[in-house]
């Protein structure tokens, strides 16, 4: 189930290695996560849940949902969606809760590596990259960390071309924008980049902010800076329906990761839930990868994403069933069928309208919400603003949160577009450098320019909705939590 030909992407695979699943050899390539290699070999059931022993498979593919925990080289609870293969690895599905080995050598207590910079940027997607570039140009020393093995965030999975204006990379594919921004970052010697590095906590130590980082799941690093920019993106929402935990049900982003980053087909026949931009783009990408899309169901009475994305998939023969929802997934150990039904005016399924699709993949594209965990943990004030995708950090027009010196940008500040993420990143990067007294006052003009661009971008029906959410946030509407 590996992709070799693709109309847009070229897959560069690492050295071939062998891993062992329950003792059986499985071919894998260096640089890919364990779960992707297992998928390519058709292995979808990765563990059996802690209490009920329900089969579980890959779901989020970004190390957040706990659905892919396996025993790797005897060590339990390893997140196989973000742990890269190594030659000779022994992998077993986990059944229930994990048991530790009885004996081990106590680990040696050592001081952590310390990395200092003026500004620490967390997240190397469009917002974080732009923040780093602009903070660096404004004179700050910057350290940028990202969990993934490559920079670009979600851009690296985006095969479609971007909207907006030319200076905002309109007409350029997301995957190409990632390369352009990465090149810009690498050009600047006052930006230091740490990949495969997770930020797991923020501690305030005097004037310094300590970001606790973990590199490659192995090394503890203390990132110490005077200002932080949190651009950790978003995560996918889940919806309740029967058997919504069956292997073969994925977040849309997980499928994009498998397919577009690692060149692995998620399955053969797909039902997509949600006709927002993510669902529509995913449908098109699946067709590009040679996977059949049976239908897109959408509970709303209309397509939520851009019409042009809908038209693209409709003319390839994919039905979009508005006012429909998924009732249940069926199958023994993995998805074999999906049952959908039409909704009445009160969002209740209409009996007798059930339809069954023989699919092996159900893709959930039911919306994103900001990844605010770090901000929440650091004590930033959080509010629920529906227009911005849920809980967001309160921030000012310079993207500074209620904790002085902590800035936010991109989807973390409210679900929107990569284009606006880049503009917000630019604002946050400059603002942080200004607040630290590093940037010259003339940089304020650049912030104002980015603010005008944002305003223009948000002046249409899609952007107006977001702008309304931001107004609420700035005006202090919404519940403090």
């Amino acid at each position: 189930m590996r992709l070799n030909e693709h109309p847009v992407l070229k897959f560069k695979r690492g050295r071939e290695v062998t891993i062992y699943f329950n003792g059986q050899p499985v071919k894998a390539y260096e640089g890919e996560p364990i779960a992707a290699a297992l998928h390519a070999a058709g292995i979808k059931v990765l563990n059996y849940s802690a209490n009920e022993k329900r089969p579980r498979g890959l779901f989020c593919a970004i190390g957040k949902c706990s659905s892919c925990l396996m025993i790797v080289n005897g060590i339990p609870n390893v997140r196989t969606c973000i742990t890269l293969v190594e030659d000779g690895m022994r992998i077993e599905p986990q059944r229930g809760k994990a048991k530790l080995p009885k004996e081990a050598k106590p680990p040696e207590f050592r001081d952590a590596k310390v990395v200092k910079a003026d500004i620490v940027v967390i997240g190397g997607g469009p917002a974080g990259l732009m923040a780093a570039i602009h903070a660096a140009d404004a004179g700050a020393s910057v350290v940028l960390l990202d969990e993934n093995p490559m920079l670009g965030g979600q851009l690296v999975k985006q095969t479609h071309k971007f909207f907006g204006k030319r200076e905002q990379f309109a007409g350029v594919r997301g995957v190409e924008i990632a390369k352009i921004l990465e090149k810009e970052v690498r050009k600047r010697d006052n930006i230091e980049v740490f990949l495969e590095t997770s930020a797991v906590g923020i501690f305030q130590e005097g004037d310094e902010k300590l970001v606790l980082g973990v590199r490659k799941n192995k090394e503890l690093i203390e990132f110490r800076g005077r200002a932080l920019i949190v651009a950790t993106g978003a995560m996918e929402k889940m919806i309740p329906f029967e058997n919504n935990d069956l292997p073969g049900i994925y977040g849309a982003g997980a499928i994009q990761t498998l397919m577009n980053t690692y060149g692995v087909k998620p399955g053969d026949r797909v039902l997509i839930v949600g006709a927002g931009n993510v669902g529509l783009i995913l449908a098109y990408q699946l067709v590009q990868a040679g996977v059949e899309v049976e239908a897109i169901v959408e509970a709303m009475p209309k397509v939520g994403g851009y019409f042009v994305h809908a038209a693209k998939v409709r003319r390839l023969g994919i039905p979009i069933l508005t006012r429909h929802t998924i009732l249940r997934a069926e199958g023994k150990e993995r998805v074999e069928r999906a049952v959908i039904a039409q909704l009445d005016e009160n969002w209740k399924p209409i009996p007798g309208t059930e339809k069954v699709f023989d699919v092996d993949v159900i893709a959930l594209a039911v919306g994103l919400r900001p990844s605010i965990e770090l901000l929440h943990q650091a004590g930033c004030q959080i509010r629920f603003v529906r227009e911005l995708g849920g809980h967001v950090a309160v921030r000012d027009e310079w993207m500074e949160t209620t904790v002085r010196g902590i800035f936010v940008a991109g989807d973390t500040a409210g679900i929107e577009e990569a284009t606006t993420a880049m503009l917000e990143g630019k604002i946050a990067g400059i603002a942080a450098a200004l607040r630290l007294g590093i940037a010259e006052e003339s940089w304020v003009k650049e912030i104002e320019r980015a603010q005008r661009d944002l305003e223009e971008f948000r002046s249409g029906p899609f952007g107006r909705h977001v702008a309304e959410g931001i107004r609420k946030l700035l005006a202090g509407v919404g519940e403090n939590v």
Partner: protein
Amino acid sequence: MSEVPPYLQRGYITPEELFEIIPKPSEERLRARPVAVPECPQEIPCAPCREICPTSAISMPTPNDIPVVDYEKCIGCSLCVQICPGLAFFMVHYVGNKARITMPHELLPLPERGEEVVLLNRVGEPVGKGKVLTVVPREKTKGDTPIITVEVPIELAWEVRAVKVER
């Protein structure tokens, strides 16, 4: 939700709905040379078509306005078809009792010049067969998107919006 336009309920637009929003090129213009027709009825923040048009034939006061083509200024160069991020631009040219439709084709396999392909309408139904007249591969376009021109019966000029390569 009565104000939801039907095209947003279905995900595709009929020619009748489209030409209530933008003008339809005249028969005379359609016969003169290829003409670009945007199927982009929704206000989204996007401007590459206007930015790339060499004759400034596309009017769009702000990026959130819909593109409207001045068919007299349009020279049929296809750059808008190549660049459009929404793959929403098409060119139509009437030649005798055939129409030549220029469209993006971002799928594999890319048809070859002269190849007969299955013609698909806006909901992906096969409506006939047609011959591919020209193919511009991805690397030769200005918008990183391969485009093809396919010949279709003239009565299908406003139906065919995709093709399927059968090998």
